[in-house]
């Protein structure tokens, strides 16, 4: 019995893509693709005692906002605190802390009372504590920043990012984006997982 001849095509070439646009992206790619309006926040980084917190559940885009800010400010210090673990607070200005609800009490005391501009990604609202520490606080609920239009742009930006060459690529319609938002609310991660499977099953370039 002869060995079956393996034949392959380039990955996702049938969709004019290089990979599944809803797979795992690196932190740099996430930051590059972040469709987040951070200009007003960047502009306030020079204010003394300024602190901004992005509040929301897992998968809603807090990390994306922090990574986008980090990519714009080369002197920023960034840390993501893993669950159940302690992490040292880095040096940098501004200071970006992802999963800030995992800071110890002592770390909160030190960080909140310092003068370094602060950007928090957190499940818990620290507004009161930050104000008591003398901070000027801006609270952004990430869920409210992800409307259908922004979601539609985000999803198609990911598709465009992995385009293989000129020509048609699949696209997400505004109707689909709205439907996904209805189903998953602002849980971007859930939406990406849903679309990953959909794209795996696509056999030709089409609009979803």
């Amino acid at each position, binding site marked *: 019995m002869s060995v079956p001849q393996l034949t392959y095509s380039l990955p996702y070439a049938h969709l004019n893509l*290089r990979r599944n646009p809803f797979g795992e992206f690196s932190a740099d790619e996430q930051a590059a693709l972040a469709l987040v309006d951070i200009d007003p926040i960047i502009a306030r980084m020079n204010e003394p005692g300024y602190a901004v917190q992005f509040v929301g559940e897992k998968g809603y885009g807090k990390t994306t906002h922090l990574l986008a800010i980090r990519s714009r400010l080369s002197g920023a210090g960034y840390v993501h605190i893993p669950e159940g673990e302690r992490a040292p607070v880095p040096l940098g200005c501004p200071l970006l802390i992802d999963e800030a609800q995992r800071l110890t009490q002592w770390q909160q005391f030190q960080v909140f009372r310092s003068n370094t501009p602060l950007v928090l990604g957190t499940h818990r609202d620290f507004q009161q504590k930050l104000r008591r520490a003398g901070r000027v606080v801006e609270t952004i609920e990430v869920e409210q920043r992800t409307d259908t239009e922004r979601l539609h742009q985000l999803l198609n930006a990911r598709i465009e990012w992995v385009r293989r060459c000129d020509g048609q690529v699949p696209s997400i319609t505004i109707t689909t984006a709205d439907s996904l938002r209805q189903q998953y609310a602002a849980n971007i991660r859930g939406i990406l997982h849903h679309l990953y499977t959909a794209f795996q099953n696509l056999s030709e370039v089409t609009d979803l």
Partner: protein
Amino acid sequence: MAKCDIQITFDSPDRTYCGGDTVAGEVCVQVNEDIRCNGIVLFHYWRTHGRGNTDRGKKHEIQLTSGVPLQAGEELRFPFEFVAEIWPLTYHGHYINVDHFVHVGVDVPWSFDPKHEEEYILLPGERPPEFSGGRGEVIEFEKEVTEAKGIVKVILFVIVALFMVLFAAFSVVLIPLLLVGGGIYWAWKKMIASRVGEVKLKMPHLVVGPGEDWPVELSFTPKKTFPVNGITVKVFAQETATSGSGTNSTTHRHTLHEETHTLHPAGAMLAGEEFSEQFTVSFPETDAWSIAESDNKVTWSAQVRIDIPRFPDWTQKAELQVVPLEFLDDPAHSGSGRSQSASGHTSVPPAAVGTASRAESEFREADLPGTVANNDAGAGESMAPLLAVVAEIDQAGRFGNERSEIVAAADGHTYDVVIQIDRVSTTFGFSGDDDAFENGRTVIGRIAGSDQKVQLFAWESSNDSLDYLSRGETWQTRATVRSWDSLYDRLVMHEVPFD
């Protein structure tokens, strides 16, 4: 407009290479504006993409040019060539993809570097040096291991020390819990052993190629008589891709293959009566090679189960490693596919082991006195007596003993037989009286000119002619009818030797 446009072309139009081949091509850099350039570098490496974090191999660097000023309108061409890696191979799965890349970057100081990359396809070629030909254990590929920095080692030491201190502090509670847990596990094992006794399971081939005949040996002597729902082996393959990190990670799993083969049907295991069988399972055709990277894994396993009704089952599982046939010294192939049991599972005829076969056919001609020699591959006159038996069997009731009685009446008669082959395997554990079949071949197929299935035990002297036959081809010989296999509805025949 980008500072440069970069194109990468390969000498192979379909970009397909085998491991160890020379990958060659050309890089074309179209300069769109005047820039300072510290060099143009080509990297080639493999990388995963999909649902999990990226795993990548070592980046091999080729300097295409050193620092040169680039002027708008200039077009630079750089031929390149390198030896393709031999592992891992290109894989396009569901959550996991492995691809090989050529990446070109123009080093522009104080600016984003223009870059471009293209994939090429890597098929099985040269065998990795880790493969010595042995099949008995899973082979580990050498990975680049990053030596932990001193501070990391100190932190790890502190963590281990803390854990030991905590364990000592809570030992008063932990040790009894461990003892109780261990006791329950021991009792569970004892309970199963009280029925099946000591079970010896051998899976001689932990390294398997696609489509191979995969051997399994199982033996035990029941301590008590007990019923079984069956003895099965489940072959299972899965992709596991991990995204995120630490405790914030998510693991995505996708089943690639799940197939249960019945090694032994439902029945009774009798106390003191040894059960000892060697089986062959036809491994599926696949290109899902075993992958074991940090965040991306393709794993294969086989689990044997003695299914005991209303009692804990005996099970044992082993990890398998699936590699291309090109990496194996002795790929084991049968003629072809498998028979399907009524349950829809793929069944394996007991005591049948596969061998390699080639796409050539030879015919053995019957020339015993009193018979009609027939050189035709089809059903000629010499087949008439056997076909008459087959016709009787076909008209007889499926249930009851009528078919067995017809076959018993035909026992001892010698027939010319032409078999349309389904598969040929090495005979193992032959239970008849004649040892001459022990090292011969077992032919499974259909009697030419009919739908009647047949299992024919051939003599060792026929091995040379049988080993080159494959599915769909025919083989002619003389044989006696010995019995009726009611499980598979087929004639069992024994080859008659030449004088």
